[in-house]
């Protein structure tokens, strides 16, 4: 038989241990909750802490949620210089276009899976000319992009067939391509057409004039504004003081990029991302 005193003592001990156990459990729950909250924040906008390498001001840099409707981007285009994002930003990107974009894959700068481009691709045939895999299977650029559903898509088109069609015709075809991309998942950036070297301008065989490129780019900017696309003016970044593509950045044809030129372009892209209002 347990006396009243010892029973009371046992009850007292039981109560205190329970209290402490409850306290420990509560502290675990609190820690777990904090941990989960932080993990969710990193998933949601992890770019804040992961992709920013330096910040001009101590403010949070976030990439805004993609909107379903597309209002004019005239107020932000051409995109202004921002903080430089980390190269890991490119993990969320795909690149589409002609041989200038092909170089990103062949130089091994961007994985081929994230490149949807073909030598000789133009705005007039991007919707009809498929990409051919080594085993012969064919995929349209739009299908490769929509299947991958990248967060960001960079498009560079326009140099091929420049002058063979009017800008209106080229941009109408460009519009058809843009319309074929699922924009609910993908933010689209338009890259301006790069300049050519002075030598290429005066080439006897197939000359290309920077003035024609500039005129096309001016129309391309309006096109981007009207369609809610972001315009990245790599043309300005690649022009020398004389307004031409410096010979040292170009391959022998005066158009294509040396490997180091891609570094210039990609750095420009990393500092000209739409970061919201």
């Amino acid at each position, binding site marked *: 038989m347990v006396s009243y005193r010892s029973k009371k*003592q046992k009850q*007292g*001990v039981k109560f*205190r*241990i329970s209290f*402490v156990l409850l*306290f*420990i459990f509560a*502290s*675990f729950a*609190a*820690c777990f909750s*904090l*941990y989960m*909250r*932080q993990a969710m924040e990193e998933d949601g906008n992890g770019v*804040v*802490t*992961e992709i*920013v*390498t330096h*910040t001009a001001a*101590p*403010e*949070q840099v976030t990439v805004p949620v993609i909107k379903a409707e597309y209002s004019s981007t005239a107020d932000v285009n051409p995109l202004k210089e921002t903080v430089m994002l980390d190269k890991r930003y490119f993990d969320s990107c795909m690149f589409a276009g*002609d*041989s*200038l*974009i*092909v*170089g990103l*894959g*062949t*130089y*091994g700068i961007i994985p*081929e899976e994230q490149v949807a*481009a*073909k*030598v*000789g691709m133009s705005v007039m045939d991007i919707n009809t000319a498929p990409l*051919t*895999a*080594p*085993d*012969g299977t064919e995929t349209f650029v739009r299908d490769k992009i929509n299947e991958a559903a990248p967060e960001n898509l960079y498009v560079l088109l326009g140099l*091929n067939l420049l002058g063979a069609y009017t800008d209106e015709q080229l941009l109408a075809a460009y519009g058809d391509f843009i319309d074929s991309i699922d924009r609910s998942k993908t933010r689209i950036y338009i890259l301006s057409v790069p300049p050519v070297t002075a030598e290429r301008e005066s080439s006897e065989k197939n000359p290309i004039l920077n003035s024609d490129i500039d005129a096309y780019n001016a129309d391309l900017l309006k096109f981007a504004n009207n369609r809610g696309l972001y315009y990245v003016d790599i043309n300005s970044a690649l022009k020398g003081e004389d307004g031409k593509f410096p010979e040292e950045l170009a*391959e*022998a*044809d005066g*158009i*294509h*990029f*040396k*490997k180091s030129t891609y570094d210039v372009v990609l750095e420009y892209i990393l500092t000209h991302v739409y970061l919201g209002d």
Partner: protein
Amino acid sequence: MNRKTVLCSIIAALMLAGCSAGGEDNTQTDAQLPEVTASAAADTADDEDAGDNSDVQETEQAEEAQAESLCSEIIGKIQESVEMSTMAEVGRDRVPMYLDCTIPTDCDFAMIFCGSGGFADEVCVVKIADLDADAFYAAVEKRIESRVSDFADYNPDEAQKVADYFSETLNGYYIYAITPDNDKAAEIFESFVK
């Protein structure tokens, strides 16, 4: 009883203190974020440094392997002797992106092609004795057809350069070359594998 209670309380307090110390980083304000970022970047850099060491070792091993590679020597000599556009090296891991085949890790192999996409220049040398030769030849044929098609409307001169490609199998080694001077490439190949 009192001692047990005190002991339990101390343990609970210690655990709480531990948890709260771990959570300090999580409760910083936005204004503190850049510091956190910098710190995180430093941590990442440390991790990357650790990774870099293993990368360096792998790179050294790869370089050693490459130094012993006859295929790499041949490609290097061709690059020295034949004027081509800026070339990019194609590691065996990237081969399936361009040729419908895979190259075993123990197979001597080297490949370069024009990096910019503007030209068709391309050279590949492989110890064909270590491969299914017919499958590899077929993969090269497909590649050639595809490249001719790519350049046909865009740059007919380059399309012709591809169509005029050179290939040869000699003493267990195979080369295909799309260069402005295939005769020179052939001469170099033969001088190495004879």
